[in-house]
């Protein structure tokens, strides 16, 4: 376990090597990056077995990094079940995505001209995320957190010649950065209050006498604000759909394993902090459910396949946050894992379609692809059904855990809203599958064919996993995931089934699918059109993404930029022209006026001398007289 710090090193090494030498390597060194991430994936398992051997729990291995004044900052690691499952998920999805990318970044017989850079950043992305989950202190965590943000920026903006990609990359970085302001303030508050950066130490001394509870409360909210940015929670979710501008495998990575999971992970890692602040927990749950419902609603009306998936991610992240707010640590992380597998598959399937259909993403132009792309459509369908919550696919189990946690820990209002979200999930997933893969094949898609093997195999593997991974919830060899993945300080809880919730969730999910079939089951769109007409206003609001983007744009254009333009003008007119040029110009003006006293005539100077001497003489005389 001590050697677990090596896991991210592979990726960092690959990045550094590729960043410097990719021009001189065959294939721009892309295989090196894949090898590095495979090595990291392999290295996870000894860590797991070592922990099973030495005892499941929190293992801490500190290491010195630097110190300033009394502040000691290390780059040590924490190895606990949370870390292990995250490591496994991240490395696994990264391997799949990178292998898939080998095919995706190849068009015809030529690689993308910047393929080396693509893989270099991929490596850095995975490595940063691995460092994030291993970090044992707040600063290192923040370091990794920001590096993850950087990589998303670089990858979303990978095709930077496209104005939209450049803008999307900027939007993602700036939006998450706004959240990071909160996170950094929260982190610094904690560091100053507790005098250490060590996560475990801080979490253990939260309730100590002498600790200012106001600071703890404030930092809980602020840290969560950071998590909201990265995990695309309302109202900081606006970057997520735009992040589609990057290559599709990047979306798979961002949505399944890195970036958006960082926020959920952060809340889980600092779980005791939120546990100690009840109001923060409630806020997390509320934000979570709002995000879940908004995401689901938007997924329902979007016509762009990748956007549907993006909003679906947003909705599921809302589920995870809701679970965390309900105290369902296990449920949240479990769902994170299951969703990660399913969503990676969905995005890679979408990528496979785009690869075949010339980057087409509008689902209205698709249909009947089932016949042309059997592997892709099977994978997509499995993933969609999983996320819709159909047993025995993996996300069904995790969704059930969340339902239990919410029912056990929160107000019934949350339960009802969550059930609504379950129906919506099934509905939009059903819609996507039906519209894209079923029905008649459009003539323009006649030439579409299945993607190359290097892309199809990862899909097939993921599909199998989506079926089987859910069973880790069950008491097989242990008493259910709840005994392995436990929040610090909580009692392990065995797998349990509450029949009423189980039945409710299955019935609702199936109901949602049935509704989808009723609406989108055949070519006839009149039913949907009628519904859209009926609820035109609501549809407009949702289709315009609740006008959130407009609101942000308005704020930036009308407030931020105006303020800065005003300040720049103030700087120029007041500070510079008045404050600096003012004294300068007054000196010049004074000189300009005084110069008329200088005639240049000898007689005037002479008179001046005489008058001066006369005055001096007079003064001397007065002094001598007065004594």
């Amino acid at each position, binding site marked *: 376990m001590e050697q677990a710090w090596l896991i991210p090193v592979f990726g960092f090494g690959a990045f550094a090597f590729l960043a410097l030498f990719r021009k001189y390597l065959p294939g721009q060194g892309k295989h090196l990056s894949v090898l590095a991430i495979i090595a990291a994936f392999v290295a996870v398992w000894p860590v797991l077995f070592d922990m099973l051997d030495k005892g499941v729990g929190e293992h801490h291995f500190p290491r010195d990094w630097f110190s300033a004044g009394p502040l000691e900052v290390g780059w040590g690691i924490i190895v606990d079940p949370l870390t292990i499952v995250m490591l496994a998920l991240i490395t696994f999805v990264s391997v799949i995505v990178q292998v898939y990318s080998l095919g995706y970044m190849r068009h015809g017989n030529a690689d993308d001209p910047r393929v080396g850079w693509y893989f270099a950043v991929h490596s850095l992305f995975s490595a940063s995320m691995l460092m994030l989950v291993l970090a044992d202190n707040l600063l290192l965590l923040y370091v990794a957190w920001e590096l993850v943000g950087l990589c998303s920026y670089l990858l979303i903006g990978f095709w930077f010649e496209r104005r939209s990609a450049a803008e999307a990359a900027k939007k993602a970085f700036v939006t998450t950065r706004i959240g990071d302001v909160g996170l950094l303030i929260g982190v610094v508050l904690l560091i100053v209050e507790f005098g250490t950066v060590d996560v475990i130490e801080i979490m253990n001394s939260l309730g100590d006498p002498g600790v200012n509870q106001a600071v703890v409360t404030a930092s809980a909210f602020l840290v969560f604000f950071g998590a909201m940015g990265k995990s695309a929670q309302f109202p900081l979710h606006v970057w997520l759909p735009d992040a589609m501008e990057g290559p599709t495998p990047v979306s798979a990575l961002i949505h399944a394993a890195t970036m958006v999971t960082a926020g959920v992970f952060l809340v889980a890692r600092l779980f005791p902090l939120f546990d100690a602040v009840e109001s923060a927990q409630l806020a997390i749950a509320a934000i979570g459910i709002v995000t879940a419902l908004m995401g689901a609603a938007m997924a329902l009306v979007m016509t762009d396949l990748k956007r549907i998936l993006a909003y679906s991610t947003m909705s599921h992240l809302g589920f995870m946050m809701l679970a965390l707010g309900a105290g369902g640590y296990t449920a949240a992380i479990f769902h994170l894992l299951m969703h990660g597998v399913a969503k990676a598959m969905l995005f890679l399937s979408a990528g496979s379609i785009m690869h075949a259909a010339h980057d087409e993403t509008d689902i209205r132009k698709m249909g009947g692809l089932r016949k042309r792309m059997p592997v892709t459509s099977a994978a997509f369908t499995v993933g969609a059904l999983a996320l819709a919550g159909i047993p025995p696919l993996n996300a069904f189990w995790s969704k059930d855990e969340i339902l239990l946690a919410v029912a056990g820990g929160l107000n019934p209002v949350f339960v009802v809203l969550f059930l609504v979200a379950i129906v919506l999930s099934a509905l939009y997933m059903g819609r996507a599958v039906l519209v894209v893969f079923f029905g008649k094949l459009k003539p323009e898609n006649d030439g579409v064919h299945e993607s190359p093997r290097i892309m199809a195999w990862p899909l097939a593997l993921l599909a199998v996993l989506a079926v089987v991974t859910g069973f880790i919830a069950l008491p097989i060899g242990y008493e259910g995931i709840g005994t392995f993945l436990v929040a610090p300080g909580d009692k392990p809880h065995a797998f349990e089934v509450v029949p009423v919730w189980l039945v409710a969730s299955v019935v609702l999910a199936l109901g949602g699918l049935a509704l989808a079939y009723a609406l989108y089951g055949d070519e006839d769109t009149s039913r949907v059109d009628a519904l859209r007409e009926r609820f035109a206003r609501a549809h407009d609001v949702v289709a315009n993404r609740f006008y959130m983007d407009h609101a942000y744009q308005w704020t930036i254009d009308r407030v931020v930029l105006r303020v800065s333009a005003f300040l720049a003008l103030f700087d120029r007119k007041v500070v510079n022209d008045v404050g600096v040029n003012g004294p300068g110009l007054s000196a010049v003006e004074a000189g300009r006026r*005084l*110069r*008329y*006293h*200088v*005639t*240049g*005539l*000898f*007689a005037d100077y*002479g*008179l001046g001398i*005489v008058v001066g001497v006369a005055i001096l003489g007079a003064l001397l005389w007065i002094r001598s007289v007065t004594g």
Partner: protein
Amino acid sequence: MTLLHFQLLSAAIFCIGLYGVLARRSAVLVLMSIELMLNAVNLQLVAFGAFSGFGTSTGQVIAVFVITIAAAEVGLALAIVMRLFRSRGGVNMDEIDVMRG
């Protein structure tokens, strides 16, 4: 002949010189007036030296200095006047105001 007589004579010459410096237009006359003023001072120095009763000749020595410097100054000034005459065709001081602000 007392010191006062020398004083009065010197003051009279000085005032004539001062008037000349302030009132004359011709540069040559101004120069001559300055010479008058210098000589008035010289007269003072020599007179004080003679009447001081210390038996020293400091006043006389300084007067010699002044004469020397005055000679140098006149040489320089006349050269300037010559240049002015050549370049401007006259030496009217009222027309020379290159230093005007």
